[in-house]
């Protein structure tokens, strides 16, 4: 029993016993897919098949994601207002953007930060205007700050002093140190009019999928790999329904931006794991040119795109995580920068275990 099977064939819920339900809930929870499952069952009119004792687990997670979606609207107003003082138009990315535009991928999906893209030339002004509205850098450590500003595609996260919302201000979708780095102007922007919110700026449909693929396939610390792949599955299906040649256009666009490898991986693994319709696979030549690289990639990714659960994790999962950790870091930074960086971070972490004061468990004790 595996939640991937359920996602591909939701009607299977009609025959699940208590212990299977426990496994489904447990796998979904640790994979960040509990709310999404609720949404899938709701869309397919399967809620009546779920026992009352079970359904509240799914519904509760959906409730949290709904709350995040609604709260995000306020942040949208606050952020656009602050930036408008300097005529900066923020482009919303990822989870917050899905929620503001109510794309199908947002229902049941949680997100922790708000991601916004501005031009690098506008970053200083943007940071200042946000600062005046109560957005302060989170726990500033000089080295981390330098790492972000010098090399990364985003500044260190900002947090609102009162509301505690976290805002990631990006000036690109790839770090400066990534060999595929592109200028801000290379991306296409679209404007959508949303009821009660007004105009929301985001990447174009094709670039949204490319961004999601790039983000997933340059990861080193995979927190929700199956959820992220499921996002891609839903996005590709959604856009393919609206536009017959979406996948073909996606490939063309990715090659234009020199980001084809990320889309190749996205199409290959969404199809392998979720049966995402990606057109005629053979004609698209989705396999890697390098056979050895393809075997290693398959090993790593097939073992990471699984529920994060003891029922699915094996020694292969651990090894895949190890390999992908290095792959992600190497993609983001060349070796000559990476080694000193990781050495520095390890030393800082070691120092912290000896010097940092232990905080009490405030969340827990009444």
């Amino acid at each position, binding site marked *: 029993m595996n939640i991937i099977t359920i996602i591909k064939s939701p009607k299977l819920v009609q025959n699940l*016993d*208590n*212990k299977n*339900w*426990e496994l489904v809930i*447990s796998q979904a*929870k*640790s994979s960040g897919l509990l709310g999404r499952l609720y949404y899938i069952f709701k869309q397919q009119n399967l809620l009546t098949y779920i*026992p009352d*004792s*079970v359904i*509240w*687990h799914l*519904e*509760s997670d959906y*409730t*949290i994601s*709904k*709350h995040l979606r*609604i709260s995000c609207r306020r942040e949208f107003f606050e952020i656009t207002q602050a930036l408008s003082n300097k005529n900066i138009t923020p482009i919303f990315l990822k989870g917050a953007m899905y929620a503001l535009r109510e794309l199908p991928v947002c229902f049941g999906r949680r997100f922790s930060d708000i991601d916004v893209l501005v031009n690098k030339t506008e970053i200083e002004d943007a940071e200042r205007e946000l600062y005046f509205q109560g957005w302060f850098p989170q726990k500033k450590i000089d080295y981390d700050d330098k790492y972000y500003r010098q090399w990364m595609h985003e500044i260190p996260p900002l947090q609102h002093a009162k509301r505690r919302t976290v805002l990631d201000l990006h000036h690109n979708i790839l770090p400066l140190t990534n060999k595929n780095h592109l200028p801000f102007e290379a991306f296409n922007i679209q404007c959508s009019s949303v009821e009660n919110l007004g105009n929301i700026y985001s990447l174009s449909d094709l670039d949204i999928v490319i961004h999601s693929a790039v983000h997933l396939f340059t990861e080193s610390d995979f927190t929700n790999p199956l959820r992220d792949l499921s996002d891609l599955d839903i996005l590709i299906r959604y856009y393919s329904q609206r536009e017959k040649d979406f996948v073909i256009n996606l490939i063309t666009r990715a090659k234009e931006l020199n980001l084809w490898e990320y889309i190749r991986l996205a199409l290959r693994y969404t199809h392998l794991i979720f049966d995402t319709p990606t057109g005629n696979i053979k004609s698209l030549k989705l396999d890697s040119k390098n056979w050895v690289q393809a075997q290693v990639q398959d090993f790593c990714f097939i073992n990471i795109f699984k529920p994060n*659960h*003891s029922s699915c994790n094996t020694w292969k999962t651990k090894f895949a995580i190890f390999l992908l950790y290095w792959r992600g870091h190497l993609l983001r930074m060349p070796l000559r920068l990476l080694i000193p960086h990781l050495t520095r971070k390890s030393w800082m972490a070691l120092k912290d275990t000896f010097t940092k004061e*232990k*905080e*009490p*468990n405030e*969340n*827990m*004790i*009444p």
Partner: protein
Amino acid sequence: MNENILKDPCYLNIGPFNCQINTNIQSVALNFSKIYDEHPRVDKNSFIDFKVNIKAPNTLRRYIKPTVSFLLDEQEPFKPLPASQGFAMLEWGLNWCIANHAHHLLIFHAAVIEKDGICVILPAPPGSGKSTLCATLVLSGWRLLSDELTLVSLKNGEILPVVKPINLKNNSIDIIKEHFPTSVFSSIAHDTHKGNVALLKPPKYSIKCINKNAKATHIIFPKYSKNSTLACEDIPSDEALIDLIKNSFNYHLLGELGFNALINLVRNTKAMRLTYSQLDDGINFFNSLINEYNHNN
């Protein structure tokens, strides 16, 4: 009872939730059987809401400055605590599980008790004496629905009992033991974040009514004030509403459903603030509510 949670998990019902409890710590197992021996059990093939494990690490830390960890499913949501707090950690952990997951219910940080048709919600921040007052009432004939978590159904506004032991601290432990010598307590956990803590077993009658919902009639904000005389003040609905929100775990998540449930709760109850110092005065006051209710109905 032949159960031994050191060997086999216990499948426990605490009202609206089924829990699977495991531990590898002797003191936790002993306290568990002392406090929970009269609680209903469910079949192991029932659907289990929370799989919980109180574990001592299998390393040297088991013996040197020993700690315990709380696990829900396979995740460890908190930092470990000193081993002597093992059973208390189980209780706090279960409360956390409910407050952080059960968003099909509106949940308040409040005690809730019932007697003869009067159902009182007692919201109170720590230090108000709520638990001592609650323990006194519950050992004097009132039914315990909950000591920490008031669960309100979003469907029909009813209060769902979640009968668990009452958390008492420091002097309260001695006061209750003295007034009620037959009361059953867990061992005392010393030097917790809040001082000495012990858990009081709920009376048989409260456990027996574990699935009997109630409709709230009163919301009373208690405040222990040393050497004060008993004083009770009616408060307007809007003030009660705001104070209830302040004492809610998940109101902010529930949107319109939560709002409607809260409005209905406040509309159908009488809200008061109660200042007291003598527990006997407290008992008399609460019992007088019953007389007043019977007189009016």
